[in-house]
């Protein structure tokens, strides 16, 4: 395939990928009234203040996944994604703006992230971490999967838009008392898996 065509495809995918996160938030309270009561209960039960994360990004053109880990600290309005390995990179989200704090050779650098796509993705991640399914439900059809234990839950989020579904068919979120796992499926079999453990409860 000529590079020009490849770039065109790449760009379209980028946009569609971004659109998912934009789309998933569209709709607002008109649809919020349709929220399944189970979701509301779940929203109450999954709040936590901190957890360890382990992120694997599986990209087909890479022989091994991009693995990173650290802790996530959740607040009322945002979260701090404190990645410690393989590089120390913090993502600080206050509900509005995002700061990226990196440390290279003992030198710390903080930079405001102005990319609106990153902002949209970060907000979506925040909604998942904070269990705000009613906001997520605006753009996603939420299916509850049967799990082996009544104490566990497992939601599959299917983009309502057919075109977006062709690129990211689904996002899965699962857990028990807390959110434990987020799996974002991309096109061509690429996916990102985020696993959370060691949750500290919201007191």
């Amino acid at each position, binding site marked *: 395939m000529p590079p020009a065509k490849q770039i065109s495809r790449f760009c379209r*995918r*980028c*946009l569609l990928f971004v659109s998912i996160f934009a789309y998933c938030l569209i709709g607002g309270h*008109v649809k919020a009234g349709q929220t399944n009561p189970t979701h509301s209960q779940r929203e109450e039960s999954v709040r936590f203040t901190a957890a360890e994360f382990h992120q694997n990004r599986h990209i087909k*053109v890479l022989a091994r996944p991009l693995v990173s880990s650290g802790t996530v600290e959740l607040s009322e309005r945002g979260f701090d994604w404190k990645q410690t390995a393989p590089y120390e990179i913090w993502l600080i989200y206050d509900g509005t*703006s995002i700061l990226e704090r990196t440390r290279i050779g003992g030198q710390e650098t903080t930079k405001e992230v102005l990319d609106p*796509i990153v902002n949209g993705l970060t907000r979506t991640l925040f909604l998942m971490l904070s269990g705000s399914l009613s906001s997520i439900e605006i753009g996603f059809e939420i299916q509850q999967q049967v799990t082996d234990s009544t104490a566990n839950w497992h939601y599959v989020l299917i983009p309502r838009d057919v075109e977006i579904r062709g690129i990211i068919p689904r996002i899965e979120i699962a857990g028990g008392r807390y959110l434990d796992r987020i799996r974002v499926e991309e096109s061509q079999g690429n996916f990102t898996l985020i696993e959370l453990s060691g949750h500290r409860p919201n007191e």
Partner: protein
Amino acid sequence: MINQPSSWWPQVTQSAAERPLISMLVFIFILGMLGVWSLLAADPSPIKSDMMSLVYETGSDTVREAALTRMRNLSNQQQLWIVSHPDRDIAFTAAESISGKLAASDLFYSNGLASGSLNQTALTEFYADHPFQLADDETLRAAEGKNFAPLISAVERALYSNARFFPASALQDDPFLLRNNFLAALRNIPPPFVFDRGRLAAKLDDRWTFLLPLHLKRSAFDFENQERLGIFTAAVTRDLKGTYPKVKVDTIGVIDFASVNRKLAIREVSLIGSVSLLMVTLLLFSAFRHPRAYLAVIFTIATALLGGCFASLISFGSVHLLTLIGGSTLVGISVDYAFHFLADRYRQGDGPWRALDTINHVTPTAAMGLATSVLGFFGLWSSGFRGLQEIAVFSASGLIVAFSTLVLAYPLLLAGWRPASNPPFVLRLAQSWRAHWSAGPRTLWLLAGASALLFLSAPPLVVSTDVRPLAADTPAINKLAAQSTTFTARLTDSRFIIVRAGDQERLLQREEELRIHLDALKEDGSITQFQQLARFVPSIRRQQATIDLNKSLYLAPGQAITELSERIGLDPRVADSQRTALRENPSPSSLSLTDWLKSPVSKPLRYLWLGEVEGGVASIVTLSGVHNANALHSRIDPLASVSVVDYIADMSGAFGLYVLNAVKGLAIALALVAALMVYRFGLAAGIITLLGPVLSGLLTITWLLFLGEAINLFHIVGLAIILGMGMDYTLFLKAGGCAPSAALAVLLGAITTECAFGLLGLSALGGLSSFGTTVAIGTAISFLVAPLAAGPAHTASVH
């Protein structure tokens, strides 16, 4: 006494007095012809409300003026709808709900309803044909010196960072993320704004605010458009409030300022006009007690206003609302001549009014009064400020028409009029004032000395060249101004940069060099963001450098791609595919500015391109959130062919020039009036006659200084009016001598003028308020000083 008029004048007055109907028809015919001429000369929308259109550009830099016009037109057509609520989702939903209605409305272009940003899909497709020419600044800096270790490290870190966006498939086409980062740089928006679900949003004062930028289909200064938009906005807001009671909807745009200013102008014109008219009515009935006199004065006012409008239309093609407000004071001035005419009736004694006698008695003095007033308005004209020039033309023409009515219309209008049998109270009052408030020149000189001492002891004179006196000071305007600062200035500041070069390539290179400085200003917080063409179209030099970089990364010995592949485990086929593409087409065609400008993707940013100018090309670089203008100037001003345009500062600079011109104009007017007075009365009497108005002006300025006012353009042009009015009073009292009729006319004229300008002093428009206050103070002083300058009155009895 006033000299006899020239030989042709008695013939005119005699003809007018003997054939009143014909002279009236001649007057109406001339006025009608002026009306027809003005209709032919008038713009399609003859009533203007754009304040900025009143300011002539003073520079000779056509590129700068083209850029200013471009930015102003752009700003005039934009309106920002602001939907806010404490809850983010509710604010968003409300904004979405409104956007549907806005899109369906025929008031706006529907494509302006997107996020207000570029169409990302079209943009990325456009760049797809140039895979190896695009890279962001950070990447290029990291690759400097052919040491690719920092670049490889940066790419590796970016892959692990959740603060960087790249879809998994990006690595397949762009392992070093060069194009990915280039596109990301185009997406940046100035803080505190974010994109939320495709809409520009910000959290301000604990409320989530969604912005809907719109492009108006019709002019912001079209009154019908303003009315329709007002009705539409009210309906949309009402509907939305029904669903979301706590949602706030605001709109900001030039159209909102224009609409508020228009309503304010209409209110003030109505108020000043009505109260002046009421005052004139009361005075007329108390002084002349006859409807015929009233009819004559109303005729003068109406024709004077019509004459002013016609002259403005012929001279400027339009009449500005500011002119109408300023010109509404004409009601107060134009009746002065009518008062002199009517008051002269008391000089004639019993029996029916004798037109020729009055005309011959009053018009020479009135003509000289008219000349001094017109010279005063010349002071306004010479300020160079379009708004004041319009008022000068409007008022001078109105006064000439008012004067004409005396000769051509009054013989018919007042034919057979008899005075009241008993002298009215105001006549006795005027007589008393004239008899007791007069002294010799010595008193006047003493007063002049005291005034000079007062002036010297006053607080220091501060001249203000601030453009803000133009703005109205009302809650509605202040709210719009505050919102404009909060939203509009953060998105696009009134300051911008013009870049010039010999051709497109050099222009883009110059913009790229400028970007280094602007990035530094961003870094230190002096500005928050900027927008330029070179972000979207790199110079050919830079494109070539990026191609060379790609060749080095993929084809050079010890290729960087090999190291990156090893570190991140990249499939070797990815590197092979990039190598093949570069080898097959080692010199891909460049992305040109011309192609970009032709493409639909450039539509929202085409205004940045000024095109070919003065043997070269030029472009605009817009700025957002300028927090430190000094830092901006100190960094950018030294750069060659790059200039910062600070619209507000430039306007203030222009105002400084206008102030200087106004002072010059005032001096010229004073010199001309002095020459006229010396010619008429001789050196000593001429100077004494002039001393009254000069003293009034000096005392007015002293008064303003004690009030703590910084003297602005409007104060200075007010002095020109004081000169005209003061001369009028002095001349009529001087000409009237012992006759109480002259004192009566001056008293009535002073009251109506005081009323008109006093009301103008209360105007919410700062400039007009300064103007009105100055003239009101000056007129009062002129009225008190005029008898001293006119010389002592002899005892007179009332007929």
